[in-house]
């Protein structure tokens, strides 16, 4: 039950963006991807979603090569949240969340619809915003709505045992401190329910606290992938970020100024 990226290389006009990256996203883990701007994080995530076809290397979901899964089957396996685009028409918050619901042809699955929407909007603290117009919300609130939509896409009845993955590109961008922590807690909760989560983070402290493993990428190459205590090495991080860092090995707090 993994997403497997094997020997991924990707280049545009002879400019190498990713070079020979291999990693697995396992069931029930939070795998954070960190690295400086332009290091290839988003590209790697988009290779994992199936949006970008790598120049060489292979991507598989649960041992199915991604080319063999049509786009609807892919949407059953994984939910994606990335930097979102402006929505032109005046949809309500509830309508945007409901866009994550994909009919799956399973008996009685449809009957869970209302329950699932309710469950997820309460989990994400969005109940009071459901009737509001999406376009009237602040940037952070809009992000939370998109997150809820991604959760609805991966909602399953509790007896389900399907392999599921969440791929998130800086999910906490624009969030205030409270909802930043809240979203990471939800991500942790979903991982404990068995969803494999692969996310890009900039905040090393969040990564250290909430990840099961951290992957460090620099100039298109995977430098290290390991549990936070082993991955966050001050010498290595200084080389990559060009910043002096102090890491408290007890609390795993990272200070860089």
């Amino acid at each position: 039950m993994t997403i497997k990226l094997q020997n991924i290389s990707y280049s545009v006009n002879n400019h190498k963006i990713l070079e020979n990256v291999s990693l697995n996203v396992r069931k029930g883990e939070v795998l954070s991807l960190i690295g400086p701007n332009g290091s290839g994080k988003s590209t790697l995530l988009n290779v994992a979603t199936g949006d970008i076809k790598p120049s060489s290397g292979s991507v598989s979901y649960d041992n199915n090569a991604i080319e063999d899964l049509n786009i609807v089957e892919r949407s059953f396996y994984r939910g994606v949240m990335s930097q979102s685009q402006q929505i032109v028409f005046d949809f309500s918050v509830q309508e945007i969340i409901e866009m994550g619901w994909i009919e799956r042809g399973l008996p009685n699955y449809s009957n869970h619809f209302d329950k699932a929407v309710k469950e997820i909007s309460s989990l994400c603290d969005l109940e009071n915003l459901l009737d509001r117009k999406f376009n009237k919300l602040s940037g952070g609130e809009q992000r939370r709505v998109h997150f809820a939509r991604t959760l609805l896409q991966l909602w399953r009845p509790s007896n389900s045992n399907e392999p599921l993955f969440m791929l998130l590109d800086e999910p906490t961008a624009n969030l205030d401190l409270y909802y930043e922590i809240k979203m990471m807690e939800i991500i942790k909760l979903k991982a404990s329910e068995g969803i494999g989560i692969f996310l890009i983070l900039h905040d090393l402290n969040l990564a250290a606290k909430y990840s099961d493993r951290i992957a460090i990428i620099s100039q298109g190459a995977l430098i290290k992938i390991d549990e936070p205590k082993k991955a966050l090495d001050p010498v290595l991080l200084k080389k990559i970020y060009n910043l002096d860092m102090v890491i408290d090995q007890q609390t795993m707090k990272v200070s860089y100024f």
Partner: protein
Amino acid sequence: MKLQLNYNQVNSLIRSNFFKFINKNQISILVITLLMTVLSLFIAASIGSFNISIFDYVLSTSTSLENKVLEQIRMPRVLLAGLVGASLGISGASLQGLFRNPLADPGLIGVSAGAALGAAIVIVLGSSFIPDYIFGPFILPLSAIMGAALVIYLLYLFTKGFGYQGVTYMLLVGIAVNALASVGIGILTFISTDSELRGLTFWTMGSFGAANWTLVFPAIIIVIATISLLIPFSRQLDLLQLGEPEAYRLGVDVKALKFRVIISSAIIVGISVSLSGMIGFVGLVVPHLMRLLGGVNHNYLLPASAFFGASIMIIADLLSRILIQPAELPVGLLTSAIGAPFFLWLIFRIRKT
């Protein structure tokens, strides 16, 4: 564990949940606009330069002259007006959704201009090159549809098969194609004789006066078939509002959706323009009004725009027939006269919010 579903099965699932994403208010608006369409059909068929009661016709107490006027002149005309209104309304709504732009309408991607060029060629050059007996009354609509099809083909060619480059590019190509078609119409206008010029001018103002069963009957069948192929994809149009990459990740084949919406619009608009001339603002204004009334989701918006477009077009045609009797006002003039100020109000309203 691979999920055992083939692509068509999954696709039909996406289309199947029509009632899940439509609310009670929207259903009642749909019912009301449908009733409005039926009612306006009856009213417009009864009123005219002389009035005929539908009840007399149904009870067979009307005279044979009345029957003839109703059957041969009024009915095809009223049905054509409804058909054109529905076509413009629904293609406006779906193109606005596809381009994620509230100002898109069939005119914008050059389809109307292409159809107009095709029609202008027949009006100005037709009689001297193609003898009447070959295509008979179908020559003008056929040429207009070919014009619309040519524009679509050019769009397809320049955007590499409506590719994955985003719709802005397609809009720009549409503007260029539009300009090219205007050049063609300009040249034809320049070389036309006085009487051809008159025909051309009246055609660009729009009229349902030439409606007859030979033309209207096949048009009804094609337009209704096309619309019923379009409506099941309204859920995908909703998802597209999240952006093309997001829609793709939710399982929408964006390229196929573009192809379907654009081809369907070209067919219904090409047919409408060919049979009635240029009728402005309906494709733009009707979807807006429906969004203001009931909401923005396409399950509701597409059928509502079709019904409402049909009913206001039937009424506009009725007004154009009776306002300055015994003469007739070009209906395109009327829709633009009402549509343009409404559009201004709309722009004003968008700026304020």
